[in-house]
């Protein structure tokens, strides 16, 4: 669903944290701002972040350091009706 705002399915970033990765994405694709995170920079409830296939939830994201070859998936989980 995020492809509405980003024309690519994958891209590379030098970011070393989830926070800086999201900053990088929003800088490159300004329409993403307030879609992945709200204006207090909190990740929206239905956005899921995975690093190398493992979900990284609220509270664990801040401490996580990204290594150069890490693979990050950001998915919108469209739940409910």
């Amino acid at each position: 669903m995020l492809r509405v705002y980003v024309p690519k399915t994958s891209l590379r970033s030098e970011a070393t944290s989830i926070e800086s990765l999201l900053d990088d994405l929003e800088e490159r694709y300004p329409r993403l701002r307030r879609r992945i995170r709200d204006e207090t920079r909190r990740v929206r409830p239905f956005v899921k972040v995975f690093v190398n296939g493992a979900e990284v939830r609220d509270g664990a994201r801040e401490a996580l350091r990204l290594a150069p070859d890490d693979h990050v998936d950001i998915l919108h989980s469209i739940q409910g009706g």
Partner: protein
Amino acid sequence: MKNGPVRIWVGTRKGAYRVDGTTARRRWTVNGPFDVGSDVFHVAPDPRHPGVVYSAVNNGWWGPTLRRSKNWGKTWKELPLPGMLPIKQRSPPVEAPSATAPIKNLWHIEPGHPSEPGTVFLGIDPGMLFRSDDGGDSWTGVEGINDHPTREQWGPGAGGLCTHTILIDPETPKRMYVGISAAGSFRSDDGGEHWKPVNRGVETPFQPVKYPELGQCVHKMAFDAEDSSKLFRQDHGGIYVTRDRGESWSRIGKPLEDDFGFVVATSPTLPGDAFFAPLRGESRTTLGKQLQLYRWQGATKTWKPLVRKGTYPGEFGTHREGLAADGLDPAGIYFGTTTGQLFVSPNAGKEWIEVPYQFPGIHSVEVSDGRPVGGS
């Protein structure tokens, strides 16, 4: 001057619609949905600028989006939200309306006074009011209400801490009112610098103190068509009228079987009168096991049911923006239900027509009645 077409603007659980008709108001064509899949809480045409329409779009996955059309809804542009720079100028950090409370939902858009043609107001959850003086391209907080000293006493209703009613006095542009659930109604006499709670006489049946200064769960307010010191109010605690700019309120809904409800609307062609859709409090559905609206007739201080018995049997609910009236003669009434029916009366409630379209649950109904701007 000739009247233009009549357009009904419908906000629903799954997008917004424009429903077109003529001044006869009997045959309708449905256009849309716009923003399909999103909760559109309010679609507000700007009568000062024919063709300009604002839309308050909320989405549980993507967050809120404010849109503006300048061509009657053919195309829409995303506008910056309060505290948000235009898209091309954004760089982190994004300033938030409140450091701890992000925008939960956009609730109500109110075009400003005709003497301030660029001014638009936006009410949001959490209980805040914003002002734009450039047609929605930038926003500033109305801090007199956003930082009101009573704010810590405010609590959310079932729909959230929502600023859902914004009224600009047509005779005194610096005088305005807001309704916030469940903080109550507030009035400013100086263009929004200072605000005073105006709830005296309005009952709060959901707490031990029955007549507090604030904390009322106001659901909707509307000016009388002729006298702007007079307002009607549908509250959680009944139907009220004030004749002194909110200084005191009198309950007029008592003769009804129940005077709980969410909506009120007035028509410029019917001064003294107001339309309501009272509901059974325990079920939030219309009275009498059928579609039923009532007209308060100010001259005789009496209630008149507007739907002939048995015409539309069943239980109907409504949200607080679900009722509108136009300024044509006879007045048109427009009523949207939570189960997606849109009813129109082209003659102040004598007859009713159901628009032949199953909408998603309806949040809001507004009307552009096609009258020439500045005309009557």
